[in-house]
């Protein structure tokens, strides 16, 4: 607890600087106008606009050119629409955003739909986030989607978090990411089955 005291101090002293002001203030007017067009389109389609604003601000923070920012926001809007199509119209904003990231990481719409099939009533946002994480660490996208969607069907998010940690542990000790995920997933599904 003593370790976290400086964090408490900062939390009190530092104003809520991460609270957003107007996002338009941080983007040049011409770019902001084009981004707003994408936001309006997303709103009309019933998509969340938070991830789109975040993407525009990310581009500005990384000093991307105007065309790059607008293109990234447009691409994300399209991917979110695809994700919602795969996950169902009842998909939450978190699921749609995670689904869009998964598509960008290499999953197909069909593989995305398997997450919903595996877990029709619960959120698949965390399962998709774990999938994106594993892909980023070297697991082939198809292998990651197959393993995590299977595990999500019968296991809870806490089990998926443990699964991911164990794969990272194996990777750190030289096991190939795909082999580790396969063996760890098999062990998880056998346990308690």
């Amino acid at each position, binding site marked *: 607890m003593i370790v976290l005291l400086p964090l408490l101090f900062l939390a009190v002293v*530092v104003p809520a600087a991460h609270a957003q002001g107007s996002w338009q203030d941080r983007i040049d007017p011409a770019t902001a106008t084009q981004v707003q067009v994408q936001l309006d389109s997303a709103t009309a389609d019933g998509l969340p606009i938070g991830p789109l604003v*975040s*993407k525009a*601000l*990310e581009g500005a923070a990384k000093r991307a050119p105007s065309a*790059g920012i607008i293109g990234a926001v447009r691409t994300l809007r399209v991917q979110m629409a695809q994700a919602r199509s795969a996950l169902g119209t009842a998909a939450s904003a978190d699921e749609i955003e995670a689904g869009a990231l998964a598509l960008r990481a290499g999953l197909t719409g069909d593989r995305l739909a398997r997450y919903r099939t595996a877990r029709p009533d619960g959120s698949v946002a965390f399962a998709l986030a774990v999938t994106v994480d594993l892909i980023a660490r070297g697991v082939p996208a198809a292998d990651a989607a197959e393993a995590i969607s299977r595990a999500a069907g019968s296991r809870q998010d806490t089990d998926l978090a443990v699964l991911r940690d164990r794969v990272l542990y194996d990777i750190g000790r030289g096991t190939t990411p795909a082999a580790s995920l396969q063996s760890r997933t098999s062990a998880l599904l056998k346990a308690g089955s």
Partner: protein
Amino acid sequence: MSAPLLRRTPAVAALLVTLAGLVRPEDAAGQRVPAGTRLEFGTGAVGWQGTAGLRAGVALAGEWAGTAGRWAVASQMNGLLLDGALARGQWRATALAPWRAGPFRVSAAADLETLNQPGVPGGRRGALQFGLASAEQLRQGLQLRALSGLATHGGIDRIYGQVQTGGWLAVGSVRLSLGWTGTVATTPVPVEPTSTPGAMTGGTQGGGGATFEPLRFSDASVGMDWQRGALEVSLLGARRFGYRAGVPNWGRAGVALQVGGGTALTAAIANVPSDPLLHQAARREFGVGVRLAAPRVGARADLLRGLAYDVRVRQGTLLLRAAGASRVEVQGSFTAWEAQPLARLRDGEWGLAFPLPPGLHRFVVRVDGGPWQVPDGAATATDEFLGSSAVVVVPDPAVP
């Protein structure tokens, strides 16, 4: 061997051991080489039997992680101006670690030390060692190392061996350590006479009326490392047993003050024990220096401190390691991509001032005003801006 040359030998050796007190041979052998690349240079004084010398040196330490394990390389080069003559010394060490073997970590290391002085044969010593340390004991542990090598000086070759064992315990921001080293050699060594502290008589077998005796002694040590804010303190006290010549007590004390930009001012004082293998007497020394560390997030090499992660989320708080940094900032999806400072915690750990909400977050970090980058150990996702971001996942505690 003439008296001036005798004076040079231990002084050069002293430089090899404690340039500024922060890069030491056992650091590389014990896998405590700081993360990333670190450069130290310094100057100081060496006192030996009433003679003072001026010294200057440079030390370089680096660590690289690969699929075969982790390589740590350290090197020192030193020069000493004494009695109008220049003596030089070098020390290099390479370590590879760790391989995991059950509950242990296995490491291997090699080091080579050379001395070059005007007018006398050079001295060399090289050794191979293997180590065993308890694995995954993050705040405490035990280790055992054994080494064997060949030392050559004055035309005499000596095969020697050492066994080193000890343990460490981290209490808050203090790391305590205990150590014991036993040394044996196959060939008798010249004895440092007790009547003239610091001097060693003879340099060749049977010459100069020297006294020789079998080499068999041990050193017991207790150490402490402490870090708070920008200040690092390192203390070590030891006593030698079974070797009748010389002063039995030795030790060193070093401080480092980080002044920003990866730069630290260092100072150290040491009472260095004699080294019979290379015919070096005990001596005292003082030095000041500057340490330059390439800003880098992560401290995978700092295994003995038990910080085997670089970035993680604990109880919703983003934590990351940034060894040697004086300021760490983060920007990401949870800060609306605005730079936010992290709070310095302890042991080089930094944390975000507010908890991350459940979900997937992307971010980059900046150390000491350097470039925005993905911290080591984090999952990396490419973005649409020809760059990349770290990815962390925070589980929703409300979802079982």
